[in-house]
């Protein structure tokens, strides 16, 4: 093999190793959650939000053509949300802006991710997997409030 080709190959492999190492560092040292699929629990059919501890909430969210249920979620600032997501019909996507939340909503399975909202404000979320004629309308928002109001959801 030519010397230049060998050097290019080695440099490329070193770069890929660096990228892979950076991902491993983020998930292990920085404790960043990785989306998990739960297959041994029967998927729920209705949405629920409840408090499981101080500043900790559980949200069971259902995606369907063409809405998230619930689509508006109010939480106090500093809340940690355990998000369980499933779908009633077909595969949908779930992406929250300004957050590392990127899940699939699949019928027959529940996808789980934990997310903490440290800053007050509005975080919009949307379906990012094309799911039919009104896919572009399938969206909602988290409203994170400074004062510690009771959490609530709305359709």
């Amino acid at each position: 093999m030519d010397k230049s080709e060998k050097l290019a190959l080695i440099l490329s492999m070193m770069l890929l190793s660096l990228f892979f190492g950076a991902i491993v560092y983020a998930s292990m040292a920085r404790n960043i959650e990785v989306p998990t699929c739960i297959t041994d629990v029967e998927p729920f059919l209705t949405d629920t939000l409840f408090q499981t501890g101080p500043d900790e909430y559980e949200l069971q969210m259902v995606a369907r053509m063409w809405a998230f249920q619930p689509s508006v979620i109010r939480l106090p600032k500093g809340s940690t949300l355990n998000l369980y997501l499933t779908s009633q019909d077909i595969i949908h996507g779930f992406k929250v802006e300004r957050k590392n939340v990127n899940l699939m909503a699949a019928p027959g399975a529940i996808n789980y991710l934990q997310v903490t909202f440290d800053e007050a404000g509005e975080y919009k979320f949307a379906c990012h997997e094309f799911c039919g004629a009104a896919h572009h309308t399938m969206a909602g928002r988290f409203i994170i409030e400074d004062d510690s109001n009771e959490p609530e959801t709305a359709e």
Partner: protein
Amino acid sequence: MGSDQNTEEEFTPRGAMAFFIVLLLFFITVYFAIYFQMLSWG
């Protein structure tokens, strides 16, 4: 004929090597720009 062969043997693809290095630097910049943005989101 003989001088042509000598020229070919001495050829070093400097342009291609420079382009490759710039390409790698570009990949590193794009990758880590997105990477640190995602880390800041937590």
